């Protein structure tokens, strides 16, 4: 067991990222897809802050992370609004049933 370093953090973030993707792919519910996205964003944030600490980037990584959080908030709001609309239109939020784009 080495000392806790950059790789540890990156590893956590990788796992989080993969789980996020897994969630996006496997879950039917659109809200769950959103949750997956949130996971991915969090993994990215961990990377930012880890690099900010171990790379020579000063506070830029932290600032970036801050912005990502802000964007995530905006994204969540918009996405949920879309989901609501979809629900109104199709009476379902199961993304596999919404395939009108096919034609």
């Amino acid at each position, binding site marked *: 067991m080495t000392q806790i370093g950059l*790789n540890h953090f990156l590893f956590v973030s990788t*796992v989080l990222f993969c789980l996020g993707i897994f969630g996006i792919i496997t879950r039917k519910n659109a809200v769950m897809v959103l949750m997956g996205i949130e996971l991915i964003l969090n993994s990215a944030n961990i990377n930012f802050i880890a690099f900010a600490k171990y790379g020579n980037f000063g506070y830029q990584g*932290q600032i970036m992370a801050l912005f990502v959080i802000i964007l995530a908030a905006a994204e969540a709001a918009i996405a*949920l609004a879309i989901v609501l609309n979809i*629900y109104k239109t199709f009476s379902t939020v199961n993304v596999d049933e919404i395939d009108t784009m096919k034609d």
Partner: protein
Amino acid sequence: MTIYDLIFYLFAAITVISAFFVVTTRNIVYSAYYLLFTFFGVAGIYVLLGADFIAVVQLVVYVGGILILLLFGVMLTNRITNVQIKTGTIKIAPAAIGVALFAGILGAALLKTNWKTINSEIPISTTHTLGLLLIQQYAVVFELLGILLLIALIGAASMARK
């Protein structure tokens, strides 16, 4: 094994395990609660990385805002009366294989890479510095983000209302 290491492993475990449950639990409401733990774990990791302010923001925004929003989403898109707040899963096999492969590659990449690291001094509190940065160097971006948020809120409201 220092205290630092211990704490790290603790938080990493919370994060990873709860994230795993998030994506595997069938009940969406449960997923949402697990997501809360994930966020909490991530916040802890932030603290370990010396980003106390971000950690607080993470808690406030994610836990206090986004998560609640997601819960609302869940509630609004399922008929509350006959609670069937469960969700099916699909394509588990290809997803698992793909994600495993992907994870393998990413893991290989991060292990093989020779990261140049330095151990910078962590200041006690980052809030002051970040605050200065936000109103000086990143002032414009900050303002623009504010506007973006506003637009997003109005847009979301109007879209949801339709």
